[in-house]
């Protein structure tokens, strides 16, 4: 479920945090999807690349230990946290929740933003 920030005219800004595991083999992707069955996941071929990737939606409360263990056990070398921001307003801001920051501090990797104003 996306995190919602209430705005003035009855709208919401919606924010979804994802952990993206990239450059995986198909086999590893399938195993990760089984391993993280308690999370909302999506495995797919990578855009313009040969490998596969897994997109893990991070809920407001989650067990970061399992994600850290997943990254280490499956020896995932390329991963990042992606923040998806959707708003009807042409201005706004985002606070990154503590558990996401904690996860990022522990596993490292990139941090990217993607937004839609519509």
């Amino acid at each position, binding site marked *: 479920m996306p995190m919602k920030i209430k705005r003035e005219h009855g709208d919401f800004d919606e924010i979804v945090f994802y952990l993206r595991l990239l450059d995986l083999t198909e086999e590893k992707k399938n195993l990760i999807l089984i391993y993280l069955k308690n999370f909302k996941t999506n495995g*797919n071929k990578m855009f313009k690349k040969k490998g596969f990737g897994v997109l893990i939606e991070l809920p407001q409360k989650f067990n970061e230990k399992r994600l850290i263990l997943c990254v280490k056990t499956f020896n995932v070398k390329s991963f990042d946290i992606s923040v998806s921001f*959707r708003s009807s307003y042409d201005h706004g801001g985002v606070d990154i929740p503590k558990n996401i920051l904690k996860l990022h501090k522990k596993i490292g990797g990139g941090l*990217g933003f993607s937004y*839609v104003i*519509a």
Partner: protein
Amino acid sequence: MGNNPVTGTDPDGGWVGLCPSCLLQLNNLINSIQAFALSGVASSVLSEITIQATRTAVSSSFLSGITASLSGRINGALSFANGASNAIQSNVSLGLIKEKNPYKQAYSTDFANGQKFGRYASIALGTAEAAIGEIISAGGCTISLTVGGAVIGVPAVGVGATMAGHGTATALHALQNLDRVHHVNSSGAKYRGRSKSLDRKEIEQAASQKGIKDRRDFGDFVEKTKKGALRGNSDNYQFKELLDLAEEFLKDGGH
């Protein structure tokens, strides 16, 4: 699963079910079973069926792809020609006929490219017209001087001067149009024209072209598709791709 009563630790991060190392071992076992099974006779029969099915699928998709591609190219070429004609008309009329908004055309990118081509063509036409006008002017002077026929010479000078003037104005108008579009697209800081806002509101433009009313839903759909396709955060969609997504959105029941 849970804490180990002996060591008091949580070895698999609270995992309920198989641990990652067990999964890896299980996967290896499945692979070896598959390899054994695939070495049998059944596998060759299965592969033959798969090959036939693939051939059928490939041939049908190939044909439909060619048809769609041809129709798209023809429409794109027509739109390019319309764009070029529109830009030339606008420049020759010195702005009396206004340039159309490319994003309101069916093939907006082709139309915009056509307009760009038309602006360059207008500069060439204007320059040629100015040069011919100068020659006629000069000829007019010569005629009036040598023959002394002011009746012939003066109109020639007048026509020549008008042509030269209009040619120069056309070329300048086209140059101004090119300059405006270039500045708006490259920096956006100096000019705050019409094209700037259109360039930046691609989702709205795509939704309006395809008759989508709920822009917010369409925006959500674009973002979800981007994430689902594992595109990078900065791998943004081009306008043509957004139009395709709009069609997909409508097919999925969006409105």
